[in-house]
């Protein structure tokens, strides 16, 4: 935040503190002035783009909950954090300013029990109605209270064997009942029209387990709501309880289609916090694999999106290419889908022998395959009818709903963190950002198709660069005290072994501070906000999910349209439940 803006804010709001930490700019404001300050920032200072809102629990402090709002100014490419203390466990709702804040507030209510004054329908976001606890509070154990007896039916039917067929605890956390779910459903939507239709949660078209409620008048949707949490696994709670490096495999399982991109975003944030430099070779390997993963992810979107609209051929074709990319990843990382390939300070393995040759073969082959997809879809009359002029997102809505990724770019907003806040090796590479004009489903399709071409360009440049680098170049910055040495050194060198042992047992020693950094994922900006009070575990790790915010505009877009459009629309927003629910 530049000085002029800070001065203006200071002038307008006398008691606002501007705090500049190493990685962030924080505005501390009193609870009463919060809405006013945010309005000022949005309308006068250009901080239009809503990035995230969350809370932190400090059980020892008098006010206990601190609310944090992350905003972005697209004109000058700056972020600001606004912090405020809740009063009597209450914060004002800002859904009038940014409609997507409604979901973030629901989540904070669900996880912390913070009440938002003026929220239109403050309900549980992920857990069901009637769940009595607030899981992200510091006094709540990660495993949850064990209160119901749930024996393993395998043992119950087969009888206990010696040795036992498996090891399990008899007691279990509370499980929802069908009545709970019905209560959840009813609390969300007051019926206005003829009939409420449930779509999902276990439906092939919902891309996972999203639960949609449509209030229908005939075939057109009058109002709708989305119930999430059918894959809420408590990632943020886990992160608070384990070391920084241990959380890396969990990021794979968030947006499981683009695992390496997630890792890159996470590793990038932690490296900022710990102050780790990454060797050049590792940066290029990271970039190459992240872009391969992006192609992989877009191919899955293409295949399933087309399958939802009835085009089975595209699905089979796209999966053919996906298998090739997964083989490349498996050959290098040892795992197909959730690869856990990156490490803090580098990558886990050096390039395997022949990797670059395989990638080169893929680069040569892929443009022809892309042409095949274009031939199948781009001028297909059915495809055009189903996608053109459906779900048009305006530029203002991109900022109001906190959209990012291809969804934002299809509406003409060139918001791409690879250019704006370059990480890995993106600042040294040459690539373009495709943007759309209309912002409908068809534009989102075209943008993603063009992104694959651009990703291929990046991969090509990375291959050229990696070929020039010597084989002996380091791929992990093992000089840094918080970075684990690569495996082959650990087995040969006593010092490295001792260091690894120390990190594995005690974790990395992070300095106190806070950092927000994001990565440009195939599903939008995946951000990590880490609040550290020194030690080896984060005090709070907030995951800003691009898919969640992209989905938050769905109820608005579907209003007045038919159910058939819902499928095309959801496919174009492309959420992944692992990331929306975390």
């Amino acid at each position: 935040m530049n000085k002029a803006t800070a001065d203006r804010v200071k002038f307008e709001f006398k008691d606002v503190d501007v705090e500049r930490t190493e990685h962030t700019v924080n505005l501390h404001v009193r609870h009463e002035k919060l809405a006013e300050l945010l309005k000022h920032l949005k309308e006068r200072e250009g901080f239009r783009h809503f990035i995230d809102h969350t809370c932190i629990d400090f059980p020892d402090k008098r006010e206990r909950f601190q609310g944090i709002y992350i905003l972005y100014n697209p004109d000058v490419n700056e972020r600001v954090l606004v912090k405020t203390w809740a009063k009597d466990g209450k914060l004002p709702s800002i859904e009038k300013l940014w409609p997507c804040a409604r979901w973030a507030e629901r989540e904070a209510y669900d996880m912390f029990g913070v009440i938002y004054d003026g929220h239109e329908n403050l309900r549980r976001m992920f857990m069901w109605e009637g769940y009595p606890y607030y899981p992200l509070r510091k006094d709540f154990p990660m495993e949850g209270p064990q209160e119901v007896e749930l024996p393993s039916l395998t043992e119950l039917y087969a009888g206990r064997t010696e040795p036992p067929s498996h090891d399990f605890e008899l007691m279990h956390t509370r499980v929802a009942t069908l009545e709970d779910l019905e209560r959840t459903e009813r609390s969300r939507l007051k019926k206005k029209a003829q009939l409420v239709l449930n779509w999902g949660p276990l439906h092939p078209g919902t891309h996972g387990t999203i639960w949609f409620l449509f209030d229908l008048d005939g075939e057109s949707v009058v109002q709708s709501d989305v119930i999430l949490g059918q894959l809420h696994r408590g990632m943020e709670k886990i992160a608070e309880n384990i070391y920084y490096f241990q959380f890396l495999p969990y990021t794979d399982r968030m947006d499981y289609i683009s695992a390496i991109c997630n890792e890159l975003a996470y590793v990038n944030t932690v490296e900022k916090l710990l102050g780790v430099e990454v060797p050049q070779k590792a940066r290029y390997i990271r970039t190459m694999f992240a872009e391969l993963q992006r192609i992989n992810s877009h191919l899955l979107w293409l295949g399933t999106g087309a399958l939802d609209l009835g085009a089975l051929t595209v699905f089979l074709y796209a999966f053919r290419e996906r298998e090739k990319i997964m083989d490349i990843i498996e050959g290098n990382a040892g795992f197909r889908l959730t690869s856990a390939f990156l490490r803090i300070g580098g990558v886990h393995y050096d390039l395997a022998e022949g990797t670059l040759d395989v990638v080169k073969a893929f680069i040569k082959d892929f443009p022809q395959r892309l042409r095949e997809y274009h031939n199948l879809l781009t001028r297909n009359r059915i495809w055009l009818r189903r996608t053109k002029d459906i779900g048009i997102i305006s530029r203002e809505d991109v900022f109001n709903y906190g959209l990012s990724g291809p969804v934002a770019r299809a509406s003409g907003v060139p918001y791409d963190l690879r250019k704006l806040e370059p990480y890995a090796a993106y600042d040294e590479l040459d690539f373009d950002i495709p943007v759309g004009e209309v912002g409908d489903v068809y534009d989102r399709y075209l943008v993603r198709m063009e992104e694959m071409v651009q990703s291929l360009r990046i991969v090509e440049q990375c291959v050229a660069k990696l070929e020039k680098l010597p084989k002996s170049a380091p791929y992990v910055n093992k000089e840094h005290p918080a970075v684990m040495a690569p495996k082959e050194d650990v087995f040969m060198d006593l010092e490295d072994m001792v260091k690894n042992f120390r990190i594995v047992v005690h974790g990395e020693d992070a300095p106190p501070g806070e950092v927000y950094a994001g990565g440009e994922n195939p599903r939008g900006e995946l951000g990590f906000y880490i609040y550290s009070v020194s030690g080896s575990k984060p005090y709070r790790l907030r995951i800003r999910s691009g898919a969640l915010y992209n989905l938050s505009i769905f109820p608005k877009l579907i209003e007045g349209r038919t159910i058939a459009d819902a499928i095309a629309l959801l496919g174009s927003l492309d959420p992944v439940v692992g990331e929306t629910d975390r």
Partner: protein
Amino acid sequence: MVNSNGFVLTTVDELLSWGRRNALWPLTIGLACCAIEMMHAAASRFDLDRLGVIFRASPRQADLLIVAGTVVNKVAPMLKLLWEQMPDPKWCITMGGCASAGGPFPTYSTLQGMDRIIPVDVYIPGCPPHPQGLIYGILQLQKKIKEKGVKKYDKAFNDFRKDIQRQGLIPREIEV
């Protein structure tokens, strides 16, 4: 076996079991990461169709439930409902660590193993398992059906009948 007149002789049980194990129709449900590998198993390279495994969108047409992904406490009753909607005989495969035993998520919101709510026939380890792993699991299930038939349901049915009698819902005289 084929006799001299060209007839195939078999028992009804074997014929039924042959038919059942070679046309396992799973329900199309994807919960998390494992669902992607399940899709890969069904797509062009691994092609589950050649094992007679064809995904069905309705539980009424399915006889196999592949639980692919993390089952959380909120989704558990829905899965149980779907399981109850499937006609007998039916089988269940848990794919991956989460569905089998909670996997890497020992948290407040995750069900620690699908076998807490429905009986499981085959557990496939992995996070997620390869498509080959899923295919191996299906082959194991086929083997199990071949060896054991559907007898386990006799036991479950007897238990159920005893339960009902104990609760006094069926008078003893009408017992068949």
